């Protein structure tokens, strides 16, 4: 709207501009008449009580205006800046002079169009418009209230850093920068969302991450056209390869150390403003089963825990299905005394095993959901109710059998051993079709189901990386950080499946290059000394 005639006549002067999104303001220049600008802004932000336009005069009596959003700025510091302009500094009315000479503000940007100006102002900057200038300044004096850095609740550790990301993207990137103090850490900035204009930062390690991967990630994000991005889940959903798979192909973490470690492996991190969850791509299935603590603990313990997790992953996936299959089709597989106990417990149960397991599993899922959603004070009541009603009373009333309660609780506990919540969700969902397969076809059905699942997982790709790598396709060298966790001295190379450029991680070329350079320098010095002796 109005873009075509912007060259001849500034469209904002006519007063014909409707309220619109920032994208549509791209290339709309700032008028040199202050009144035109103020009129336009007042029209745009009519009925916006938090948008402030503060007219003032520079010390040399030139009209100017400061625009900001109340609550996003740090009032004291904006006052300081205005004081400088209004009281202290007597000089030019030219914007570049104000920027370079007059204003003692560290973060200051000169903008030409309204998109840039309003982008800054709506993010918390303070805009300065000066009569007779076709440019404006944005002062990065932000002061919105944010949550303080806390221990991440979703990924608690016993050993390891206890800081977690918060909702402010700059704080988050700073936390990453603190971990990786190198110019190689790059952070590309992008903005997504017509209404939300969410800041997104794509972070990667230059020289480690595959540049094609970085390009692919940036391209996929910049192609997103959406109203608003309220959480990184929007981005995840829009950039992943197979939206309809239950398996998450993008991992998230709220731990700076996990993100830093992922970058060091050659992955790319996507920070989204407004959420503490940082996305990591490409993601493999095994990443979901690894906790950051694995790398901090002694390797024997970490290996044991990993194996335990794999075991319990299998348990949480197949136990209910296996119970149904074995008790309804393959009774010969159960030891006689156990079978008699099961039969005794099931004697009064009116439902077939599959109905019984469904009652219990659904009840358990409901309990779990209730436990998460309810306020903490009510949570305890829910857990007592759940334990009493679903556990004991249901058994005593003869609705479900005691072995079934055991099966369901083992399954529940097992699903909690998966360190990353969204992988656990996939397992929780897949359990149900497996139960039906078991009820229809017994163990044969379970095997068919598992084959379909494994086949599906093998066909998944996350940004070009096979979901099951390094197990399928097999790359033997990477297995020492998959099935087990080798001691750090053995993990010399970064994972190869990501196509990293600089594969060595420790004892690397840098050290040997350094030593070689020192040697060469010494030799040269000696040669020169010899020459000068001659």
């Amino acid at each position, binding site marked *: 709207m109005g873009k075509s005639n912007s060259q001849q006549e500034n469209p904002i002067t006519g007063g014909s501009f409707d309220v619109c999104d920032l994208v549509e303001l791209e290339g709309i220049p700032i008028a040199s008449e202050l009144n035109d600008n103020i009129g336009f802004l007042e029209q745009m932000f009519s009925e916006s009580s938090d948008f402030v336009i503060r007219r003032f005069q520079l010390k040399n009596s030139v009209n100017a205006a400061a625009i900001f959003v109340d609550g996003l700025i740090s009032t004291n510091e904006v006052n300081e800046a205005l004081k400088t302009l209004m009281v202290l500094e007597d000089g030019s009315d030219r914007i570049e002079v104000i920027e370079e000479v007059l204003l003692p503000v560290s973060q200051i940007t000169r903008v030409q169009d309204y998109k840039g100006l309003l982008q800054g102002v709506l993010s918390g900057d303070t805009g300065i418009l000066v009569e007779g200038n076709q440019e404006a300044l944005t002062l990065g004096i932000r002061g919105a209230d944010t949550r303080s850095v806390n221990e991440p609740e979703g990924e608690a550790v016993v050993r390891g850093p206890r800081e977690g990301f918060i909702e402010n993207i700059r704080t988050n990137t700073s936390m990453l920068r603190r971990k990786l103090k190198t110019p190689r850490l790059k952070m590309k900035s992008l903005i997504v969302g017509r209404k939300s204009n969410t800041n997104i930062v794509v972070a990667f390690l230059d020289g480690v991450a595959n540049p094609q991967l970085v390009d692919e990630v940036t391209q996929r994000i910049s192609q997103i056209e959406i109203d608003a991005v309220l959480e990184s889940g929007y981005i995840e959903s829009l950039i992943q390869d197979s939206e309809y798979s239950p398996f998450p192909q993008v991992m998230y973490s709220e731990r700076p150390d996990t993100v830093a470690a992922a970058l060091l492996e050659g992955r790319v991190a996507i920070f989204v403003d407004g959420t503490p969850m940082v996305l990591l791509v490409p993601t493999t299935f095994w990443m979901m089963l690894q906790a950051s603590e694995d790398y901090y603990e002694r390797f024997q313990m970490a290996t044991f825990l990993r194996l335990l997790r794999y075991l319990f992953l299998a348990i949480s996936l197949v136990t209910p299905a296996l119970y149904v299959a074995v008790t309804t089709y393959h009774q010969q597989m159960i030891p*006689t005394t156990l079978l008699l106990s099961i039969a*005794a417990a*099931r004697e009064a149960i009116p439902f077939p095993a599959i109905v019984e397991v469904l009652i219990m599993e659904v009840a358990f899922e409901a309990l779990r959901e209730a436990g998460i959603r309810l306020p903490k004070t009510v949570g305890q009541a829910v857990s007592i109710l759940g334990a009493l009603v679903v556990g004991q009373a249901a058994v005593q009333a003869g609705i479900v*059998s*005691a072995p079934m309660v055991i099966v369901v609780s083992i399954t529940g506990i097992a699903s909690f051993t998966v360190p990353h919540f969204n992988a656990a969700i996939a397992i929780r969902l897949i359990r149900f079709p497996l139960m039906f397969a078991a*009820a229809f076809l017994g163990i044969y059905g379970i095997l068919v189901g598992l084959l379909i699942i494994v086949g599906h997982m093998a066909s998944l790709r996350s940004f070009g990386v096979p979901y099951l790598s390094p197990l399928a396709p097999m790359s033997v060298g990477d297995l020492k950080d998959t099935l087990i966790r080798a001691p750090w001295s053995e993990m010399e190379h970064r994972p190869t499946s990501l196509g990293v450029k600089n594969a060595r991680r420790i004892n690397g070329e840098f050290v040997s290059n350094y030593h070689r350079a020192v040697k060469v320098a010494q030799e040269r010095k000696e040669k020169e000394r010899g020459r000068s002796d001659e």
Partner: protein
Amino acid sequence: MNNRGKWRGLTRLWICVASTSVLLSGCWDRREVNDIAFIIAMSVDKEEDGKYRLGVQVPLVGSMGAFSGGGGGTSGTKNYYVDSAVGKTLREAQAILQSRMARIHYFAHYRVVVIGGGLAKSGISKPFDIITRFPENRLTSFVVMTEGKGIELLEAQPQLERFSGEALRELVKAFTIPVSIKDVAQMISTPGIDMFVPVFKPADTQPKGNRKEVEAMGLAAFRGDKLVKVYKRSDAAGIRWFQRYFTPLSLVVPIEKGWISAEFLKGHASVKPVMKQGRIHFDIHLYSSVFMPENMSQLDFNNYKAINELEKRLSEEVTNKVTFILNESKKHRMDPTGLGAAFAKRYPKLWENKYKKNWRKELSHITFRIHSKVEVTNIGQITNSLMKEGQ
């Protein structure tokens, strides 16, 4: 778009094929555990009119304690019951039984098959056909014999186990030579070895209680599939040395004006057949390892010679036991120790051509020599009885 349409068609076809195949499959063998009658033990008897009687022992799971709500209507203290039926074949008998049981018979969990004395005498191979043929059956279940009616053993009500079938299984494993259905089949079908099974009988506790226990009585030796003779526990001991796995036994030996209990923990026989002037001779070496838990004799174990004497006495005893069994097999022309199989291993051609067919006849002409070696490895915590006066 075109490509996608083609795939969609294929997918539909596949879904159709897959779903019909599920519906078409006739084998819909879903059985809930509470629709099944688990048969814990069964007995096979031969009736006087030549028909077979099949007895089954079924646990009443509803009355077995555990965590059940109401339900499971049973009365009395018994938590199993025994029923039997007669038929020309075992399957017929089973069908009759099934027609008065509300739950489907499930044969994959029986622990023992009890052979009645009458059946054993007339030959067991006919009823064993279904036992080995029917896929639900377990070849690892044990076979025992009783001299009376097999079903009497099922009706016994042991105190320690919930069912007599379970008690039989535990006893077979612990105190007799365990013989499974698979072993029976192998022993019947292998020439050069004859089958034997442990013998049990229902016994009263003393003083007499209101329940009957099952007691291991000894061993029944067969020729082919027919019973020849039942041996007492101590008489049949010699067979144990010839088994692949020696099952421990204890013997009481008279020595030095008293008795000594000897617990044979390990035992092994190596049988070496030799052809001597056209006759078959067996050199049998027996090794045993013994723990002495009780000394009621005058032997003084402070003196190491006492151990030598005991070992000597024990090896005589072992020789006697084995000799008894071998003489019995010569006498009755049966081969429970598997001498024929040992001979066949050593002289395969000779066996095939000459002895395989009339091995039983040949058995009465064989000679053997027994070399027994016994090691007393453990005489307990004390050397001399604490009760004895110091000398």
